[in-house]
């Protein structure tokens, strides 16, 4: 059963991915049935996405992540929160993030 995402949720990268900076792009490759598959759909993150990925460390809540990135980057009010929630939801959907227990 999937839990609902809210600002108190805590997430971390799944063990079943390979994530690397490759030639200026941050790419995430899924590991399916014990195979890191470069021929499968891979996911790339831009600078904002990478900052979100790096912040989701299994300790900070989404609220903490938003506050931390708001203090680091200049953006229109509410924009960073929207990005963090959007990117987290997409990564969760792709099973590249897992909820920290």
């Amino acid at each position: 059963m999937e839990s609902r995402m809210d600002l108190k949720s805590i997430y971390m990268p799944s063990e079943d991915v390979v994530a690397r900076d490759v030639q200026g792009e941050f790419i995430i490759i899924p590991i399916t049935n014990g195979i890191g598959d470069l021929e499968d759909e891979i996911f790339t993150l831009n600078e904002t996405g990478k900052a979100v990925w790096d912040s989701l460390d299994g300790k900070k809540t989404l609220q903490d992540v938003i506050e931390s990135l708001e203090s680091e980057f200049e953006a229109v009010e509410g924009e960073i929160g929207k990005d963090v929630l959007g990117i987290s939801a997409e990564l969760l959907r792709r099973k590249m993030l897992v909820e920290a227990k």
Partner: protein
Amino acid sequence: MKPSEISFSSVSLIELIKSAFAKNSSFRFKVTGYSMSPFIKDSDIVTISPLPLSPAALGRVVAFIHPGNKKLIIHRIIGQNSGCFILKGDRIAEIDGLVPKENILGCVIRVERNNKDARLGIGVERRLIAFLSKNGFLSFIFYCGRLILFRRE
């Protein structure tokens, strides 16, 4: 995003393979080049796995970092000397020189071509292919094969 939209350099591929192996996973990717043809052809998809290497490794097709140019290459083990492996592409005359064990990333365990498995060259016949390749007979066989095909046309 489809991987074909990104061009991966040797260095990037090596990093990705090492990252996958660190998670006890194999790694599947598309190859380019003709040095292992007809057993591995340009645009085939190979799966490599971090299998342990031993004297029984003769004939295995492996992904390794070339000691000279540091590029990722997939060639066949045709012998061993002084604790290093002697590697060679099936289609080319020159050997890659002595390659230390630590430069070997993993073994090719599967080759896919046009969505089907291409098994010839990585099964038990690999030792015979290694013998033929080492002694220059493989090039002769390919040459004769081309002559026969040319005459039929």
